[in-house]
């Protein structure tokens, strides 16, 4: 690993330099209070300090909201020619926070499960990640430390770690080394000391804290299948799916064909779906396996803190970014739901003993 030091100005210069040759996406302010990843051009104002998790997580660059998987073209009676979608544009996601970095690692697991998903991995291999270690929680909602993602670095090409008024720049991969070669950086002899300084400078505890360690949550949640809390936490739910769509570890999709008017050509696409939507688990004939909003909320929460951890053994599938709680218009926060269940579990255990 090669390590450098530089002030933020030079780091930004370097990112601009990269952007001149390659599409680089960076979190930029959008609207009144939000951020989104936008393509860097000459006019972009790049800043690391001001940040709130982007509306949609950067995994949309790996699994776009709507993506063509192949085109079809009728070439004769009943005969079709299929052309699978090939996406080889190289892109750089810069300023990606640790929560999102961990989420991308989780997506790597999901899309490698069983058959490797070619559409995901062709984008993944063509994407470079430049991470940024948060020196402070992005706002009062974040609970990344508690969710176990705050120190995530796995999968990055380059990691930027703020230390004092400078940044530690570390290339973790060969690609990272190639990228950093063009920066006007000073060498860093003792990266570990710098990292330690970063940790020392960081507030403790960092952000909100879940009421139980994430590795205890599967067992706790398992004990509360029938809890009335599920109903309470959906009283105000719109089943709008926002919490799914903004979540960096939600990946469910629907498959749809888009065809020319006469049906002779078109494409098969997949587009994001959301398990909080009413018809997500409806089968033909009308039976809905999760007709009740509480059942859907339970599925979502358990997916993040129990089911998928059990399947992939990669820790919690919630990375604590708090996007869902921030974007839910009605103020439902998965953090509160989980804590509520933990509190009830503790109370019940206390009462029993």
């Amino acid at each position, binding site marked *: 690993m090669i390590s450098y030091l530089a002030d933020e100005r030079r780091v930004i210069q370097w990112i601009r330099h990269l952007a001149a040759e390659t599409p680089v996406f960076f979190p930029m302010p959008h609207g009144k209070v939000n951020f989104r990843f936008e393509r860097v051009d000459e006019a972009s104002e790049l800043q690391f300090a001001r940040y709130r998790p982007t509306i949609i997580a950067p995994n949309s660059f790996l699994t776009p909201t709507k993506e063509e998987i192949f085109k079809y073209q009728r070439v004769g009676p009943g005969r*079709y020619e299929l052309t699978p979608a090939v996406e080889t544009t190289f892109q750089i996601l810069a300023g990606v926070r640790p929560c999102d970095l961990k989420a991308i690692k989780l997506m790597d697991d999901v899309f490698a499960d069983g058959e490797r998903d070619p559409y995901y991995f062709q984008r993944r291999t063509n994407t470079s990640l430049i991470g940024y270690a948060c020196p402070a929680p992005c706002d009062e909602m974040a609970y990344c430390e508690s969710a176990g993602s705050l120190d995530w670095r796995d999968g990055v090409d380059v990691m930027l770690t703020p230390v004092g008024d400078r940044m530690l720049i570390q290339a973790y991969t060969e690609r990272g080394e190639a990228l950093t070669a063009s920066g006007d950086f000073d060498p860093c002899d003792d990266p570990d000391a710098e990292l330690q300084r970063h940790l020392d400078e960081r507030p403790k505890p960092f952000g909100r804290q879940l009421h139980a360690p994430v590795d205890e949550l599967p067992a706790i949640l398992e004990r509360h299948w029938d809890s009335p809390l599920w109903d309470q936490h959906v009283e105000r739910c719109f089943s709008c799916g926002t919490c799914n769509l903004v979540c960096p570890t939600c990946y469910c999709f629907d498959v749809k064909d888009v065809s020319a008017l006469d049906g002779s050509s078109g494409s098969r696409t997949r587009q994001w*779906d959301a398990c909080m939507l009413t018809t997500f688990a409806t089968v033909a004939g009308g039976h809905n*396996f999760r007709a009740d909003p509480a059942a859907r909320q339970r599925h979502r929460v358990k997916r993040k803190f129990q089911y998928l951890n059990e399947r992939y053994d990669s820790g919690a599938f919630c990375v604590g970014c708090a996007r869902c709680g921030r974007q839910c218009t009605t103020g439902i926060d998965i953090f509160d739901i989980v804590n509520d269940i933990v509190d009830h579990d503790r109370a019940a255990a206390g009462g029993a003993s």
Partner: protein
Amino acid sequence: MTMPGAFEPSPVANYLPTTAIIEEAENFTARDRYFRLSLERPLGHRPGQFVMVSVFGLGEAPISISNPPGDAPTLEMVIRNAGSLTQVLHSYGPGDAIGLRGPYGHGFDLHDFLGRDVLFICGGLGLAPLRSLIRAVIDRRGEFGRVMVISGCRTPAEEIYRPDLTAWAERGDVDIVRLVDNAANMPWKGRVGLVTEPIAGLKLDPAETVVAMCGPPVMYKFVLLELAGAGINGDRVFVDLERRMRCGVGKCGHCQINDIYCCQDGPVFRFSEIAHLKEAFL
């Protein structure tokens, strides 16, 4: 078709269907249509697996494979007119082409049944996937103990694979119970009642019996209770769980129950392995 070899799902062929031609089609019932397709090469499937059937422009649907494994480049299936795609498939007949990919999922493992008494419980269209296994068992009849089939549907007019059921009954070495919920005003020689009712009368040997079942979601709870009453252990009951599926290969999230994907880890499950999943038997 330009993409060869799609029956061995390779990373490139993922999601890409191949073309198959319908050789024979017949309406089994008012809403269930039987198809026999000819393929370029044998499917190489196991009983209980499924394929994704496509019509370009309309999308895909998971459909169970009805024929037993073997060397014939053939695929049999029964499709119920249940929605946008299946309605269109009902207008298809011999000579028409459809798209296919698969086979997908974990089917039944014949080894779990060899040397045992085998009970099949089929509700309605549930006979379609089970037929694949029943045929495989009957083909090697000598290697199994008793072979019993309970096949139920709502009315006599809704029974599928009637010639098969008759032929199996005529063999003499297979116990067939055919029953309907309601036979009002219709010719019907079988029994009237629910698929749970004949179970007790079969005098099953709990130690020897292996069960395979498939039917509408409501059926499972009751059959499982009945089987438990007959002393049959959950590790010898195999269930076929059908959920909404979009990709068939464990990515789209629709068929997820707890930490399992019905498509990839199923659709056939050993009951004891999923008995704790509360959403499995809603």
